[in-house]
């Protein structure tokens, strides 16, 4: 039996997530792992937007912020369970993306980049300025969803880090599965067609604006859920998650790993999340090394780490 590349990708991802803890010397590694999954979820959304549909966004941290603050605010003001709040946040992000996406996505290239950047900046400004509601730059606490306690009463006692590792890992695998399914669906084909050439796609009857909007909304869902996951496991959130730097970071992860493939982008998330942890050995040279690594990867592996590597390996196999 031959497995499809989709199934292999998902199996590899799931196996990696499940088996990695066997090699963890301390539970700090669970923390890094779960951060990789949280970022991985957001970049999976960006693969749909950037890799499939070819649209750039420098404002997706805005949706991360909406998702994060939904988990902090909805339980207080609406009495929702934080998990339900994450769903509400995703719906809200999707709705906002649908509204904002219409005009923004008419723009191309850098103009789209600066418009999305403006959107992200507006979200982070509101979060930082409306201190009575959001606690301002000092941030606010996020209530515990009680899932861990639930598992404990069912007889499964996980440490905080281990629980969020497992939870984020499962969410990521589901997210990756959906994104991979999308790739082979008619929507995915339409997105790739308009990525190649909007004019050509339009002439064969693809509703270019509609499909771009769909990709934007989908990627907003992913970003929002990633923000919610982050808020839930940190139990504390500040407007930094919605900031410009975080948007840039997400785009960099996507491109560094390989925007065209889900696994590649998750690889990128892994590299950029682990790198600051690894580079602490360089002390004050940390920033220098980070910049160098980014430049070297892009110079020598211009399509991103994973696609370039797999091409090289395949080339050698011949």
């Amino acid at each position, binding site marked *: 039996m031959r497995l499809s590349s989709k199934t292999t990708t998902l199996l590899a991802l799931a196996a990696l997530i499940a088996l990695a803890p066997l090699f963890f010397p301390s539970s700090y590694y669970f923390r890094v792992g779960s951060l990789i999954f949280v970022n991985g979820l957001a970049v999976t959304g960006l693969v749909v937007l950037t890799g499939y549909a070819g649209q750039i966004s420098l404002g997706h941290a805005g949706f991360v912020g909406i998702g994060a603050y939904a988990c902090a605010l909805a339980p207080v003001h609406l009495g929702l369970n934080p998990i339900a709040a994450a769903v509400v946040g995703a719906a809200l992000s999707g709705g906002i993306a649908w509204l904002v996406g219409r005009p923004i996505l*008419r723009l191309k290239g850098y103009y789209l980049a*600066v418009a999305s950047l403006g959107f992200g900046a507006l979200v982070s400004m509101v979060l930082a300025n409306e201190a009575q509601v959001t606690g301002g730059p000092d941030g606010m606490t996020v209530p515990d969803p009680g899932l861990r306690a639930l598992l404990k009463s069912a007889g499964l006692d996980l440490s905080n880090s281990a629980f969020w590792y497992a939870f984020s890992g499962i969410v990521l695998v589901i997210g990756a599965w959906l994104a991979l399914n999308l790739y082979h669906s008619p929507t995915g084909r339409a997105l790739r067609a308009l990525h190649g050439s909007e004019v050509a796609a339009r002439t064969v009857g693809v509703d270019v604006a509609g499909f771009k909007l769909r990709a934007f909304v989908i990627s907003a869902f992913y970003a929002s859920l990633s923000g919610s996951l982050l808020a839930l496991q940190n139990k504390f959130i500040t407007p930094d998650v919605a900031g410009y730097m975080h948007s840039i970071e997400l785009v960099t992860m996507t491109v560094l790993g390989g925007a065209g493939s889900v696994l590649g982008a998750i690889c990128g998330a892994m590299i950029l999340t682990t790198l600051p942890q690894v580079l602490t050995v360089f002390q004050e040279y940390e920033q220098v090394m980070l910049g160098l690594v980014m430049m070297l990867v892009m110079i020598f592996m211009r399509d991103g780490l994973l696609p370039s590597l797999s091409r090289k390996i395949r080339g050698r196999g011949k």
Partner: protein
Amino acid sequence: MPELMQFLLSGVTVGAVYALVALGFTIIYNASDVVNFAQGEFVMLGGMFTVFAFEAGLPLPLAALLAIIATAAIGVALNKLAIEPARGAPVVSLIIITIGASILIRGLTQIAFDKQLHRFPAFSGDAPIQIVGATMLPQSLWVIAGALAIFVGLWLFFTRTLTGRAVLATANNRIAAQLVGINTKYVMTLSFALSAAIGALAGVLVTPITLTGYDIGIALALKGFAAAMLGGMGNPKGALVGGLLLGVIEALTAGYLSSQYKDAAAFVIILAVLFAMPQGLFGRQSTDRV
């Protein structure tokens, strides 16, 4: 009325700073379609080099000149070591390279110099100039004059000189440019040198007003980028008008509406302009190649 005048003077001062940064983006963009996210770092380097050369005892004009030359050299190095080897990579990969370069330059600066804030004296003293009941510092005039001078220089360069047209031709179609005998490698090197020099000059002019430090480049690049896009990327006129407009909008919002949301107002207006004019105020119309 003096309030309005004060808001306008403030807006023009800040706007000239944005315009100077925005002008720096245009050349590299015109030569390669790449928005150089390390442009803010050139501005920072111009200021920092001048501060340390000045503190080492050099006269200010000489320190500034050295800073501009040193920064231009760094621009050339960036092109030779990072952009040229990545020739043919997708534009988004080139952008990540420039983001990496900006992190690298910041990292090196904080080690080579320090993480403190610095300034050097204003060129013509600090005695405020009175204009219709409002005031302005003499250094603001230097910044405004600098922005205008660079704008005129760039405009002449792109329209009146062969090299400037070669830059535009390279951006338009590299292969065609090579066919007509343009040395595209040279054009790229030249654009990085010029962009870096303009950035450094901006840094020299604005430091007495904004102060400088190893990480001021991020915020400056962000505002400069927004200003350049508002005006239309690649067009010196767009950079100048975009920068000034952005500064004035911010100052008027801070003055009349809310200082908390002045940056928000700026972005709302950018979004509104782009929705109406998707290429910015003065951007060139692009056509899709099929």
